[in-house]
């Protein structure tokens, strides 16, 4: 693999990524995988369970270097990531978890984040004392606390109630529109993808490649219900086609 840090595009090109498995046979997660996203824009990754979405994010984040292919990232820049599980430090309070990940963030900024995620009263709790939804919110707060330039979100809003998820989507949309944070979000919710992304990557079943790319041409704020419905219907057709393959 190779990594390169000076592009105006976030580009991933993986000829193949295999997992060597201790039990069972080795598994090919990605094959002939290619994806590119302009810096400052948002992409959504939608694909069947177990197809390789998390693998993709880990490759982009530099956590997985054992693949053949290359990754190009915008130069410099801070990375914020929401893993599929909260991954908090169980032995530190909520606020300490934020402080440790974002030592440069001011206390006010952290307090504001906690408030935005309705976590104020949990600031001093340990992760073991949180419900899963609360813990996931802390993980989101953590990724936002470092004021990232690149944001990788792995199904960030599951286990959150609708009202909260709506608020958070709006918040992320603002980050993208105003701070031009390059964002890649994995989701199973097509509406969520349409609402947040500029490009939607529809992945095929494993071994995964980008089976279809949908550009969301209408700007986020002008998106109507009908336009969204149409996009969703198109996406569903593409997905069905890939499944039938």
């Amino acid at each position, binding site marked *: 693999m190779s990594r390169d840090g000076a592009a105006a595009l976030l580009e991933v090109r993986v000829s193949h990524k295999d997992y060597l498995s201790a039990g069972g046979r080795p598994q090919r997660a990605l094959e002939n995988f290619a994806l590119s996203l302009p810096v400052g824009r948002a992409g959504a990754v939608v694909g069947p369970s177990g197809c390789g979405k998390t693998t993709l994010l*880990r490759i982009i*984040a*530099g*956590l997985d270097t054992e693949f053949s292919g290359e990754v190009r990232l915008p130069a410099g820049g*801070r*990375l914020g*990531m929401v*893993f599929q*599980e909260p*991954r908090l*430090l*169980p*032995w*530190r309070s909520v606020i300490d978890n934020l402080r*440790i*990940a*974002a*030592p440069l963030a001011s206390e006010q900024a952290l307090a504001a984040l906690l408030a935005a995620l309705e976590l104020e009263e949990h600031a001093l709790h*340990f*992760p*073991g*004392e949180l419900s899963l939804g609360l813990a996931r919110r802390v993980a989101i707060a*953590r990724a936002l606390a*470092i004021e990232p330039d690149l944001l990788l979100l792995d199904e960030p809003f599951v286990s959150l109630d609708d009202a909260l998820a709506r608020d958070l989507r709006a918040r992320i949309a603002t980050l993208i529109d105003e701070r031009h944070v390059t964002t890649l979000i994995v989701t199973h919710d097509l509406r969520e993808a349409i609402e947040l992304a500029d490009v939607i990557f529809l992945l095929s079943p494993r071994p995964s490649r980008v089976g279809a790319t949908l550009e969301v041409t209408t700007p986020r704020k002008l998106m109507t219900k009908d336009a969204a419905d149409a996009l969703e219907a198109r996406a569903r057709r593409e997905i069905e086609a890939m499944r039938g393959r």
Partner: protein
Amino acid sequence: MIRLLSLALLLAFWQGAALLSDPRRLPGPIPVFEAIAQEAESGALFVNLAATLARVAAAFLLAMSLGAALGYAMGRRPALDRLFDPWLVILLNLPALVVIVLAYLWAGLTEAAAVGAVALNKLPNAIVVMREGARALDHELDEMAEVFRLRPAARLRHIVLPQLAPYIAAATRSGLSLVWKIVLVVELIGRSNGVGFEINMAFQLFDVRLLLAYAIPFVLLMLAVETLLVQPFERHVSRWRRRPARGQGLA
């Protein structure tokens, strides 16, 4: 509280056993504490205890810090582990006497030789325990640290040490006692003072009372350290662990 009750119970057992047996074989608590008081009055107890404690502390710190570092490295880097594991097994199983004798022969009857020999005896145990701890480290938290670019110091403090805590606790508890036991041997073979030296004298004279009088103060000291320092500290650092609800588990 319960701790005192427990000690009282033990004292009662001891007294009971002593009453049933020849005082030469098992003196009761009263004569032993009298002997302790006597040795304390003459000052001999403190001199020897201090000498031993200094050796225990030096050897323990040396062995634990080195052992933790090496054990961590071996647990994390399979290549290192494969290279040094045989050395570890050998050092682990080399009789204390061999190490001590060689150390004295090479470095003379010096304090450095004594402390070094003890540390070398304890070192492999510390490595073995810490290596298991390092092997069991959570990979996911590492990834988190990697993504959020935590500095090495922060990783050590917030990610690694809390996970190693139970292993450190185990290595410390059994390690302190091991070091103390080896210090006794080291003092017996080549030092002119210390509890080990006095215990040997008591053994030569077959004075079980004096033997216990020198063995017990250190035990009591450890009990105090445990009660006043280690356990409160442990409670503090492990307060994040969820209390298990009642009626669960195998036991």
